[in-house]
């Protein structure tokens, strides 16, 4: 099917890329249908709203810059989207890109969790206060490279 995207204009996508967020994302509760797209810039993804073309989030797998990252969310959030075993989980962090892109941050406090099988997702809240709203991606990646982490 064809969808309008903020990043790439109108493109052809597989309907299996559609992910439904029954509760929306925090601050965007009314938007429930999204497409998960690979960004041209690896290893990023776009979560593109199917309802409002201007609404699209950049996502990343947080383990890329934080190998020690562990998804720690309330069990009830996982159950709500039908996840019963770990293999069903697909999780991402939402990326914020400010004026200076080198300062980009990832939100590990409000991870997105998706049921791979049913493609239903929700934004959860980390139960571990170590995971915060703004993790500087490039700085933490540099720490990984130095072996400091």
């Amino acid at each position, binding site marked *: 099917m064809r969808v309008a995207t*903020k*990043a*790439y204009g109108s493109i052809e996508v597989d309907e299996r890329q559609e992910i439904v967020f029954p509760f929306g*994302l*925090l*601050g*965007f509760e009314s938007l429930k249908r999204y497409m998960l797209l690979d*960004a041209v*810039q*690896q*290893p*990023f993804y776009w979560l593109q709203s199917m309802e409002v073309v*201007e*609404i*699209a*989030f*950049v996502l990343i797998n947080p383990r*890329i810059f934080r190998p020690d990252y562990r998804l720690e969310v*309330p*069990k*009830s*959030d996982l*159950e709500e989207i039908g996840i019963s075993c770990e293999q069903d989980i697909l999780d991402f962090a*939402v*990326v*914020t*890109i*400010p004026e200076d*892109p*080198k300062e*980009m941050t990832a*939100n590990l*406090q*409000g991870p997105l969790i998706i049921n791979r099988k049913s493609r239903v997702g929700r*934004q959860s*809240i980390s139960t571990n206060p170590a995971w915060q*709203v*703004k993790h500087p*991606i*490039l700085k933490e*990646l540099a720490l*990984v*490279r130095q*072996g400091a982490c």
Partner: protein
Amino acid sequence: MLILSRRVNESIMIGDQIEISVVDIKGDQVKLGIKAPSQIKVFRQEVYRAIQQENIQAVKAQPDKIPPLEGLLDKTKQAEKK
């Protein structure tokens, strides 16, 4: 909004299973105890607001502003090999 006065060690019930008690009051700080079933999520309200604000910032991302991480990642892999 329902407003109730409570003293230290008094509590309120929300439904049959959630109990919120005033544990201590010091100056302008109130310590609350919350008894609730494990499937009830309890978070400070600021946490919700912070994530909401961050999402609003995140949605401003411009497609041409995403810096390429790929080069950096390759270097990471090379470093691992050494």
